[in-house]
């Protein structure tokens, strides 16, 4: 089942398009990283998926065939917005009660156990908790609803390194225990490599890269070699991004066959996720998108 499927999705505010021609099919059972610079449209896409925004163009469906904002979609999706909004004047216990009363499905024991494990006192006012604790509380109330899909909008932005680690550890533990799908947006690329198995790169409101991280890393290499040869060889290769000095050049290329040796005179190096994303962000015209295939069947995509 595709947790989020969009076709030609677009959102316009007044005259500017925040998101345009977005066509992706995000498969379930993955941890999906949505990356891109500020203003790229990440929050817009996530808000469209959870029903906070309505599309200006195109269509979007979630959890298979549900419309965002429908009762089934609301039940099945747990969302933590940017800055983890919570009712700050309530004590933690009442925050749990409020969430329980706003939902059909709620696991009080799970929520309390998780908070106890994290050392978050139930009587304290939410506003008095630290940033990391508030983020963990927001995550707890989302997870206690036992959603199929967890959507997190820049959850790590306001957190210190320890809080970030603990937050992601909590999310990953939930994935391990319950098999939920996670879609999270972030611009902390280095941390995402450990965590993500599906990547979407958004830039200037358009999807540039979409695919399994394993495939992307297998089909991209950095070739290092003489700058003088770069121009000639780049015609034979699918170069995403080229950089280098006068003598030596680095070409980030896309290959069809993993393990394919580089052309004569070049060294081949594996590419990190961060390198890959940065290269695509620097080349707005480049894209690494899954080829045409029926939108319903995402599993056919994995090679």
């Amino acid at each position, binding site marked *: 089942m595709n947790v989020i499927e969009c076709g030609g999705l677009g959102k316009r505010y007044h005259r500017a398009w925040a998101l345009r021609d977005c066509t992706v099919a995000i498969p379930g059972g993955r941890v999906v990283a949505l990356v891109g610079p500020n203003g790229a449209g990440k929050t817009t896409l996530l808000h469209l998926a959870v029903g906070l925004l309505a599309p200006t163009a195109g269509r979007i469906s979630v959890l298979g065939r549900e419309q965002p904002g429908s009762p089934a979609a609301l039940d099945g999706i747990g969302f933590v917005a940017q800055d983890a909004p919570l009712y700050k004047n309530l004590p933690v216990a009442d925050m749990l009660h409020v969430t329980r009363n706003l939902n059909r499905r709620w696991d009080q024991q799970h929520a309390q156990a998780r908070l106890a494990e994290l050392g978050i006192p139930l009587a304290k006012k939410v506003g008095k908790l*630290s940033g990391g604790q508030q983020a963990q509380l927001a995550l707890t109330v989302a997870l206690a609803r036992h959603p199929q899909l967890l959507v997190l909008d820049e959850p790590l932005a306001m957190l210190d390194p320890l809080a970030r680690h*603990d937050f992601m550890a909590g999310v*990953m*533990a939930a994935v*391990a225990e319950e098999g939920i799908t996670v879609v999270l947006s972030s611009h902390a690329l280095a941390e995402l490599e450990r965590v993500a198995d599906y990547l979407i790169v958004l830039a200037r409101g358009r999807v540039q890269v979409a695919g399994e991280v394993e495939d992307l890393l297998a089909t991209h290499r950095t070739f290092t070699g003489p700058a003088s040869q770069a121009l000639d060889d780049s015609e034979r290769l699918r170069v995403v991004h080229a950089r280098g000095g006068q003598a030596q050049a680095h070409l980030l290329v896309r290959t069809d066959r993993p393990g394919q040796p580089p052309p*004569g005179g070049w060294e081949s190096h594996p590419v990190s996720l961060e390198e890959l994303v940065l290269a695509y962000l620097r080349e707005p015209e480049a894209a690494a998108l899954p080829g045409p295939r029926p939108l319903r069947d995402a599993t056919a995509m994995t090679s």
Partner: protein
Amino acid sequence: MKIDKEGRSEGAAGPGAGAGRSPIEFRLDPASGVPTYLQLVHQVEHALRLGYLQPGDQLPRIRDAVAGLAINPNTVLKAYRELEHKGLAAGRPGQGTFVEATLDQVALPQLATLRRSLLGWLATAQSAGLDEDGIVALMTSALRDFRERRGSPAAGRGAPSQTGEVA
């Protein structure tokens, strides 16, 4: 890991205390360039060699490994599958993954001897004019030849680089 009021975590009380029922706990080297799942595989193999793990011991539960390192559970799954493929571990449904076999354990004194002879060789190589990168390149290609001669499949992604033929 317990987090106190200020959000700081207490250190683990001692070896094995935080890891539940497994004798080992994973760590990650994000700067090594080696894929995460391979790091986990290597750590298990290393623990086997040094005797930290015995056949019958349980490997860290996926949930614990993931909570400790904040990595994707599929990564741990992949590492455990690789270990199963190598015959070193086996999963028991509902219980976890357990060590099945052992690697040739190299006793610590033997390791010390090997280390000393390696340091000697390194000194020789340096005096021959080979710098550090040259040494690494020589070792890598020698390792590759050794592996090929032994006949086990080369793990292509584990190698830091491949040099193409120089025209």
